[in-house]
């Protein structure tokens, strides 16, 4: 299993274990509830990379991004909001359909098959 730990994880202070890697479907995601009530969507691309994004869709205010479809638009890995279908860049949180909108990203790492989400 790929261990994703890019630069973004470097500054993380606390890591929360959320699930086993195999609990996250390829091309799909799960939602994790952190201690402070923050919801993170952990999404898994077809080539096995994991990404953490805020679970809240900024256009509707609903906590649903973990239930979106994961794919790519012009090679950029994205998740599509299940409510109004805007695509969000999994790496940066930027909205592809409205460049003024973006959402928070969270570092994700895998330790011994367990997925952890980091908060700075």
């Amino acid at each position, binding site marked *: 299993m790929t261990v994703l730990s890019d630069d973004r994880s470097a500054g993380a202070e606390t890591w*929360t*274990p*959320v*699930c086993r890697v195999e*609990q*996250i*479907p*390829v*091309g*799909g995601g*799960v*939602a*994790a*509830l952190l201690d402070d*009530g923050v*919801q993170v969507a*952990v999404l898994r*691309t*077809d*080539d096995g990379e994991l990404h953490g994004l*805020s679970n*809240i*869709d*900024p*256009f*509707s*205010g*609903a*906590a*649903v991004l973990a*239930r*979106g*479809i*994961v*794919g*790519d*638009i*012009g*090679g950029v*890995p*994205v998740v*599509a909001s*299940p*409510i109004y*279908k805007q*695509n969000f860049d999994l790496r940066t*949180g*930027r909205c592809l359909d409205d*460049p*003024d*909108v*973006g*959402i*928070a990203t969270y570092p994700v790492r895998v330790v011994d098959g367990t997925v952890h989400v980091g908060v700075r």
Partner: protein
Amino acid sequence: MSRTLVVAGHGMVAHRLVEALRSDDVDGTWRVVVFGEETRPAYDRVVLTSYVDTWDADALVLPGAEYAGDELVDLVLGDPVESIDRDAKRVTTRSGRVQDYDALVLATGSRPFVPPVEGKDLPGVFVYRTIEDLDDIRAAVERARQRRGRPAAAVVGGGLLGLEAAKALRDMGLSPHVVEMAPRLMPLQVDDGGGGLLNRLITDLDVTVHTGTSTSAIAQDGDRLQARLGNGTELDVDLLVFSAGVRPRDDLGRQAGLELGERGGVLTDETCRTSDPDIFAVGECASVAGRVYGLVAPGYSMAEVAAATLLGREASFPGADTSTKLKLMGVDVASFGDAHAATEGSLEVVFNDAVNGSYKKLVVSDDATTLLGGVLVGDASEYNLLRSLVGGELPADPAALIGPAGGGGDAVGVEALSDDAQICSCNAVTKGAINAAIHDDGCDSVGAIKSCTRAGTSCGSCVPMLGKLLAAGGIEQSTALCEHFTQSRAELFEIVRATRITTFSELIAKHGTGTGCAVCKPAVASILATLGNGHVLGGEQATLQDTNDRFLANMQRNGTYSVVPRVPGGEITPDKLIVLGEVAKEFGLYTKITGGQRVDLFGATVDQLPQIWRRLVDAGFESGHAYGKALRTVKSCVGTTWCRYGQQDSVGLAVELELRYRGLRSPHKLKSGVSGCQRECAEARSKDFGIIATEHGWNLYVGGNGGAVPRHADLLVSGVDTDELVRIIDRFLMFYVRTADRLQRTAAWLDELDGGLDHLYAVVVEDSLGICDELEAAMAEHVANYEDEWKGVLEDPEKLARFTSFVNAPGAPDPTIAFETERDQPVPVMLGVPEVVSR
């Protein structure tokens, strides 16, 4: 100060005139007062006969004919103009209303011609021109039916209008006689060869044809009629319809001293102006430069000429193409140009295929280089192309154009046509005008051409040629599904079907690029589901599914779901209704009755869905697929079970159909309805496939739609029994599922289908492509393999495990979801503060 235009008559042509004037008169220089004799606004008389299918006059409505909201148009109905005072420039109506005018347009149409036969005024003798005429005929048929079961009827006239009347009678379940004085049917349109075939085809349809003889007298015989023909035949009938041509209604003009044409009609010049410069005449009552026209297209062009003249622009009537194409009782008849080879020295090329019931004749110039006209009977599919070639140089040997191999459509391309060739004859749009729309106005789709030029918006038979002109203009209409697949949905369907690929990853690896997106993943998931690849949430399929399919429920704006169990035909027992109430109470759900006759329970969280469904499945409910691009509901009225008017068991059929097609995944949602009689309480004609009962069986309508672009469904077959009905719906649905684009409802699909309704009929009723067996087999497989999706989830722990809000805290409620109470029920409150990061 605006001037006043008075219009006498509100038929099809008057309506087009008012429409044209009002759309061009931006400064409102004319105020329009229309007086109509009929009590309803102008309607589509050309399709009068289809009124028998539904007995719903609304189906004939011409859009905008009430001028609602237009303060400059006054429409006065049921009050005909009775006289014109040309000196005072005013008209007087039957009710005594006096109206001054600055200009007057006569658009009074025609009256049916009734020959001076003894007994022509007897009760039981009718004419055929208005909705009321048809209502009267229907009443007479009903009365006779009560007296003696199967009534008999005769139509006098074997031309276009006579055969229309015969069709109406046949659609009412009668086997009419048709009496025609000329030696063949449709003498004006076809020659003897075509007439012979036509006679045979019409006789096959249970119509008795008497040609070469007239009706010499009609006599009362008890409560029936006896019609004596010139050849000695006596016909005992319950009713008789005169439909033997028309005569212009020129009495107003005659009485006002206007000049008349030699053969009747108010004489006008090429601008449609009569001998009084302030009075115009348009439509069937006009004799433009001495010629009267009995078709709607020339009338429309007169209306446009008169409107332009009234606005001070130059316009003149270009003469008209009297070509006609019709489908009478399923038989194609077309004639165009010099159909009777009246041109000196003209030559005829005839192709007569008695076996397949097809007769084609082309008339060409003496040197065989120019097409002059022609006749097509039985198969008129090349009509549009051939007609537009008239007057131009022939692109190929005339025999090749109508011969069995290829046929006109393939032998010559649209490139061969000249710029002034008319592509759409209903709206007089030339190839030049369409090309201008494509190249100058940037129209890049058939839809854009339609709205820009009106071409293809009436009978639709030129739509395939619009597509060819686009292609000829180098405009490629991309059918690519998305950036990951260059293929259209229909092509992908065929690939999956032929290769038996069962996963998205294999399909995209072999036939696409990238990793997929929210467009192609659900589209492929739907194709895989239609072709029977197990549970929609099985294996890799789960993550392909769109929002709602992913959790087999409808996601609402706050991320919660609504739950809709299936209630086939809208029929539900009190016990089941109580279960729905109990479940709603227990889980705190908002309840609403849907338009599809079921109950929608709102506000369920992901975690609650399996618990709710456990209760529902135990009580005998199953998934209603409200979340899927699949069959939704088959709505029904109570039909013969309860209703005094019911003709058939509409609920029984609705239940049967809903159970048959439940779970069928399709390009878009599918809705259906069954009404027990023509009163149409189930609104079946607004559905993808709707069924209306008649006393003879079922009428099937397809391609209906509600929503933003409503469309009345078109009649596909009538009077069929339940087995035949189901067989045709099986084929229709499978054909649609295979060939439609992603998210294309049947209405849009049918509008875009090459050849339209005729083609659909050919494929699913006549099996022209030889695929009906295959379509039926595919549906049989679907029916045999149907399983309830929700039951499937409840039985599978792995699928169940996905129904949690938080992977690390199963059972924890989602803190962003909250409700408040409105009208005693819970409704969502949005708490989630969006974390917007501005960049």
